[in-house]
């Protein structure tokens, strides 16, 4: 994408991509033509140009169990499509969605009413179940619930009323609306090490996860800024919010956003360097945290090299609840 705003974020994390990247892309195309075929042709065309198969290939590049690649790729694509598809859904619709996603992730069977997105959710469960314990699914579902209620649901009041939230409130919503909190559970699968309960609930680990979620939100806001400025009704972008909060120019707001972003990176690095003593799990936990960094680095590379998601006309219209499907 043309770098109208510079400098772009920079990370001290390893940049990697899986050797199975071709497989990731082929799978994605197959799913668009089958489970996702219920969506409009123009939406599917946009997804094919977005190269979503590259997202998991870059964010989770170290998956050692080959059979986990497919569910990780699958998860990445359905969570993205779900977020787009239900963008204009009401609170009641979102609650119904939340319950269904949670039930399917906990192993319930599909029904005739479930759409293709939910079919993909159910398949992810079946494919991951042999590799992870139930408590992992329970933790995933808890974060998925929060994402759908607070993240997907938190932005809509501002989008509908076209108001811009205060910065402090925005930061809380954005951390959840980006959808990365539930996604981070996949890093445990990538690392082939499911965090023991004591580690998974440890406030230091939570803070690191919060920071990665925030960072992915800020990063998304940098790369989607031009698209959002063009459509003129995006209220939920860090730069827009800062500009409104301090009544400053776009360039000044961009610089301030980058400062916030960089402070979060520095905080993440400082905590990683001073991890608590997790005893026999120390090495695995250290590696898990490194992979959180790889994830954010990989996502940046996808924005920079792979996707057309943020080009003019690259983004799909939210189809759920919309009567104008072409």
């Amino acid at each position, binding site marked *: 994408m043309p770098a109208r705003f510079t400098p772009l974020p920079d990370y001290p994390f390893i940049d990697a991509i899986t050797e199975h990247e071709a497989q990731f892309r082929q799978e994605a195309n197959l799913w668009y033509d089958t489970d996702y075929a219920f969506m409009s042709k123009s939406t599917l065309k946009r997804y094919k140009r977005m190269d979503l198969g590259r997202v998991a290939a870059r964010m989770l590049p170290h998956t050692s169990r080959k059979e986990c690649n497919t569910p990780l790729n699958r998860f990445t694509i359905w969570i993205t499509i779900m977020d787009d598809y239900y963008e204009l859904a009401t609170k009641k619709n979102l609650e119904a969605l939340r319950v269904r996603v949670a039930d399917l992730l906990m192993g319930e069977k599909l029904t005739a009413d479930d759409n293709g997105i939910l079919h993909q959710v159910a398949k992810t469960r079946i494919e991951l179940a042999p590799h992870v314990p139930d408590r992992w699914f329970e933790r995933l579902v808890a974060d998925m619930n*929060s994402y759908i*209620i*607070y993240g997907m649901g*938190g932005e809509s*009041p501002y989008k509908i009323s076209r108001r811009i*939230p*205060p910065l*402090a*409130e925005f930061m*809380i*919503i954005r*951390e*959840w609306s980006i959808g990365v909190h539930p996604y981070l559970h996949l890093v445990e699968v990538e690392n082939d090490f499911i965090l023991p309960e004591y580690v998974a609930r*440890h*406030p*230091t680990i939570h*803070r690191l996860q919060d920071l990665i979620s925030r960072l992915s939100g800020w990063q998304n806001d940098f790369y989607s800024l031009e698209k959002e400025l063009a459509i003129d009704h995006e209220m939920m972008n860090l730069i827009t919010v800062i500009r409104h909060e301090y009544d400053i120019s776009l360039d000044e707001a961009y610089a301030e956003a980058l400062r916030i972003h960089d402070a979060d990176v520095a*905080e993440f690095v*400082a*905590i990683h360097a*001073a991890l*608590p*003593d997790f005893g026999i799990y120390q090495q695995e936990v250290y590696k898990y945290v490194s992979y959180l960094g790889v994830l954010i680095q990989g996502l940046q590379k996808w924005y920079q090299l792979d996707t057309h998601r943020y080009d003019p006309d690259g983004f799909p219209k939210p189809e759920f609840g919309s009567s104008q499907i072409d």
Partner: protein
Amino acid sequence: MSNSISDEQFYAELQRLPKPRYPFPDFMHPDFQQQREEYYDWIDREYILHSKAAREKHKLHNLTDIAARGCPFLRTLEELRPLANYTANGAMMDDYWDRCSRNEMNEVRKRIVALLNGEDTTEPTDNGIFHQFWVLRQDAIKCCMPERLYKKYIDSIHNVLIGYTEEKVYYRANIPPPLPVYLIIRELTSGGLPFCKYVSMQKDYRQLPDDVLAHPHILRIHTICALMIGMHNDFISLPKELRREGDTMNLVIVMQHAHKVPIEEAYTMALEFHDNHLKEFMLLHEHLPAFGECQDTVYNYVQDLGIMVAGVYAWHTNDTSRYVNGGYVDGEYVSQD
């Protein structure tokens, strides 16, 4: 450390620096005196492991007043008891095990958690601190604390104990942590999170659903409250902590270490940091998410979180015995590690 006149002057200067202020009224539970009497009784019966001098000092601190000031609107003494118990025993255990190792603290943590969540139902016959945590669970059941709220309460006590465990590393090494690490640990060790959870036992707040009580917006407010309590404690206890080796978990000391500035300048930076958190609290209070028919109840709940912080602070400014020279109870437990 020497106690020369110039030292005294130095500490007197520190005490003249500006202090935090809160725009919330402070209250006290009407049964505070009765709760104090019970507290003296706990100390005499349960804390026989401590020296006589330590016990008398603890009594002077009236630690249960923190609970009476933090949650002044609880309906009965029965409802105050589980909070007063945690407050007093949490503070006294922190003093007692001040100098134990991280591994020792980890074992203490596991045992207390098992007593609180009912995994271990045997009434402890040893060390009074463990016995008191067993009593806490019995008292919570007696006052009909909703299980959902009890679970949040003891999970947050568990986090306090994790904080006590992690701070040992920095105490032992006698170095302040980097600011990001301080923030994680201090949010826990301030003891403020269990108070935030317990505020929902007051008035009609127990009706608030989990969608409210676990909302990221509300959880951020809890974090801010816990940090403000940790920070205002740091301002008050600074002179004591500068005197004692190893008391490195203080925001002023962290700022001084990170920015290599004189102590007065570090103090000003720390106070500004605190005040920014207070501003964020006020803003989030005025910009609550849409909670439908609960909206007013949530607004009042957050107001009472502010009253809680102001109440805990009022204990610090009214209690003149804990943080003066010689008033503090030194850790009597001798580490076996």
